[in-house]
């Protein structure tokens, strides 16, 4: 059968789909009844080579594990928590105790019952001790009490905003079975590579760096779900190979912008596929340009502002990102519930102003037209390097000579984050839903030197430190949001790091997949309701 003649319906999906905020364009099929069975194969570009989300948190690991291991709550479209293993939650009046009611009648894949003891073990032994971000989120966690099998009471020694915990829970609060891990070497437990969970799919086999194969869990707590018989997640790092796999129907979904932008644009016009950012709203990435303010030139805020003015971000997002991205308004992306329009100043493209600011700062053009020279270090991934080249050419126009120096990921971390041996550095900041989780740490002082993705810019503002620390323990959501507005104002005024663009990951899916990309962090959800139309 020639698979390429299938369903050539004339659906116009032209360039319009490229105009951002793109839903994965789909033909309406709300009335269809879900069909049981079938194998879904999906592609991602990398994996963490371990399958324990209670110890390692990253969007890459959640794609693999969230089908087997479930969080206390997940994230819904209105930014509201969706009950998973927890069905209800409440915070005590003093804000230091949070109680979760747990789902009853849930079974682990090995048949043992799921209880509050599992939550206690996961929290105290893994989230608090090992999990990246979890160690910070739960640093004041003193105990998890388990009065009965379906109640877990989290006790903190400081205030813990309920909203912060619930928003972080979909990424950081995955529950693993106590009976599998207790009394073993946690880092080397075989279940880290062959998980036992409560999720809709059961583990079959895992070849790290290659593929994960899962099968339907017939005892899942949602009757009738999941619909798929099998689920295969393939790691294809090469972008061109990934496009070929999608086009030849070897895979049905590609996630996390892992196809070349030009291919995404081409597939968006092909009726066999749907391309868009819908279902990825929770994965906002900011393209950043960091300034090492320890250096003489960059310690002057006028120079930093001049550099910001010298970059034609709108041109870049249109021509290089093909519309999959836009100018950022500050460290909190526009997709966030914490976003306040106009919270801080932005720097429109203005070469004249850039030149004037540089002159004012005392860096006149020399005989060869150069004001001064800097080194620019991009982190890995093509996108960031491409942006670095764009910055290099843009800065040339205002008389700043830029030398782009490329290292691989560990090399970059050592150079930029640890040794602070750079002038400019381009990177990305993954916005984690709440500015308190992964955003403010880029600006705060007092973080131990050499901490990756913290304030490697050598910049300090007591005002900002004060407001971000207060916001972390403020339990009134309205006041908290206002505090982060203040934070954005200082961050945008002083720009130790320029939040240049915001992007949302792009997915591409075959037209016959149903119920995909129906949640703001869909790639990291359970996929219990996904099915395949014939």
């Amino acid at each position, binding site marked *: 059968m020639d698979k390429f003649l299938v369903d050539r319906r004339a659906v116009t999906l032209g360039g319009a789909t490229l105009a951002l905020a793109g839903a994965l364009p789909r033909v309406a099929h709300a009335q269809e009844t879900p069909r049981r069975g079938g194998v879904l194969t999906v592609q991602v570009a990398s994996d963490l080579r371990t399958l324990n989300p209670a110890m390692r948190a990253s969007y890459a690991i959640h794609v693999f594990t969230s089908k087997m291991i479930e969080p206390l709550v997940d994230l819904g479209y209105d930014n509201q928590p969706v009950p998973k293993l927890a069905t209800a939650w409440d915070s005590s009046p003093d804000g230091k105790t949070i109680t979760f009611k747990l789902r009853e009648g849930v079974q682990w894949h090995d048949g043992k019952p799921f209880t509050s003891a599992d939550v206690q073990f996961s929290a105290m032994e893994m989230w608090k001790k090992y999990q990246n971000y979890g160690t910070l989120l739960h640093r004041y966690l003193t105990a998890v009490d388990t009065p009965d099998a379906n109640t877990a009471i989290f006790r903190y020694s400081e205030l813990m905003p309920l909203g912060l915990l619930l928003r972080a829970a979909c990424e950081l609060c995955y529950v693993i079975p106590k009976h599998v891990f207790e009394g073993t070497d946690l880092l*080397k437990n075989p279940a880290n590579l062959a998980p036992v969970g409560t999720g809709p799919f059961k583990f079959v086999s895992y070849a790290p760096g290659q593929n994960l194969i899962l099968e339907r869990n017939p005892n899942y707590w949602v009757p009738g779900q999941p619909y798929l018989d099998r689920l295969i997640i393939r790691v294809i790092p090469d972008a*061109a190979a990934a496009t070929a796999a999608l086009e030849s129907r070897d895979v049905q979904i590609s996630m996390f912008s892992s196809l070349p932008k030009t291919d995404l644009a081409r597939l968006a016009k092909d009726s066999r596929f749907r391309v868009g950012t819908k279902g990825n709203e929770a994965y906002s990435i900011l393209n950043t340009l960091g300034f090492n303010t320890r250096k003489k030139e960059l310690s002057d805020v006028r120079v930093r502002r001049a550099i910001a003015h010298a970059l034609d971000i709108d041109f870049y997002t249109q021509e290089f990102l093909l519309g999959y991205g836009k100018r950022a308004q500050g460290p909190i992306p526009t997709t966030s519930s914490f976003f306040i329009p106009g919270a801080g100043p932005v720097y429109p493209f203005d070469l004249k102003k850039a030149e004037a600011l540089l002159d004012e700062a005392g860096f006149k053009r020399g005989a060869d037209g150069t004001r001064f020279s800097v080194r620019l270090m991009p982190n890995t991934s093509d996108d960031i390097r491409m942006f670095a080249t764009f910055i290099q050419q843009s800065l040339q126009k205002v008389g700043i000579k830029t030398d782009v120096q490329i290292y691989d990921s560990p090399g970059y971390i050592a150079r930029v984050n640890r040794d602070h041996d750079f002038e400019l550095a381009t990177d990305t900041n993954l916005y984690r839903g709440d500015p308190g989780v992964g955003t403010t740490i880029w600006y705060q002082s007092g973080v131990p030197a050499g901490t990756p993705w913290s304030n490697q810019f050598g910049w300090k503002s007591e005002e900002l430190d004060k407001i971000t620390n207060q916001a972390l323990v403020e339990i009134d959501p309205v006041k908290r949001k206002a505090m982060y507005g203040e934070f954005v104002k200082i961050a945008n005024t002083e720009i130790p790091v320029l939040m240049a663009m915001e992007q949302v990951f792009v997915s591409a899916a075959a037209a016959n997949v149903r119920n995909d990309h129906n949640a703001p962090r869909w790639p990291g959800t359970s996929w219990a309701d996904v099915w395949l139309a014939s």
Partner: protein
Amino acid sequence: MRIFRLALNRLAVSIPCMGIILLGLFLMLQLAPGDAVDALMGQMGSNDVALAEQLRQQYGLGGGVTTRLAIYVWNTLHLDLGYSVAYNQPVLNVILQRLPVTMLLMISALSFAFAAGTAVGIIAARHVNKWPDTLISTLGLIFYAAPSFWFGLMGILVFAVWLNWLPSGGLEDLGAGYTGIGRVLDIAGHLILPTITLALIYFAIYLRVMRASMLEVMTLDFIRTARAKGLREGAVLTRHALRNALLPMVTILGLQAGAMLGGAVVVESVFSLPGLGRLAHEAVQQRDLNMLLGIVFMSALLVIAINFIVDILYARIDPRIDFNG
């Protein structure tokens, strides 16, 4: 007995050589900025220094270079390749998972290149300076000059995306759940494009060597003698000329077994094959020192083994060659 002595000889030479390679690699990787835990933290996007330090201790990455080197040498002497930070598994497990894929790819590509190169080289030599020779030589030059990843990508585009005859990559159809002969055929189908891609450049080399070698042998006295005996041309070619012309071919076969491991990195990436080449590439990016040293160790063993086999082949083809000589 002779073979046994040769094996011992080879081993005696290989062991110090391997020691130098492993030591050099260990020290060179110390120069690369960042370590395995940095790479891990990078992948997780984590910024918890205390956690990084804890992981460093648990994975044995703490301490100075000399301490770690001493531990490494001690472990290697016990044939313990260590634990991989990036894969959360013993290095040997991961390598043994990947080795068969690379072996399969290398052996099929080498056999294809050798067989096709020999056959086409003979044809070119038989029609020297006529149109078949010109055509073959031109094609050979193109295959030699064009980068293999380009052929790979073009192959995928034409045979997988347009014609849909062959799969676009991977080792097997994971969803189909084939067993037995069905699985063998499935894997063979998946290996057609990668094998040809990897083999093309070697095919070009073999055909040129075969052509030159054949032309040279055909002018020698014993060929004239054979013809004078009244042998038919076919018999002259296969019984007398070919056997002599094959000697230089076998020489480069041994030499290229090592080079092919390098070429496999590209082909494995383009076709998303889970082989050693891609593993080595990832190990560098992950600063997974144990893994990288383990791969080098295994590759060295592989190359030594292939060269050993080539030496034996040598003696079979040309009885004048003596192991003791």
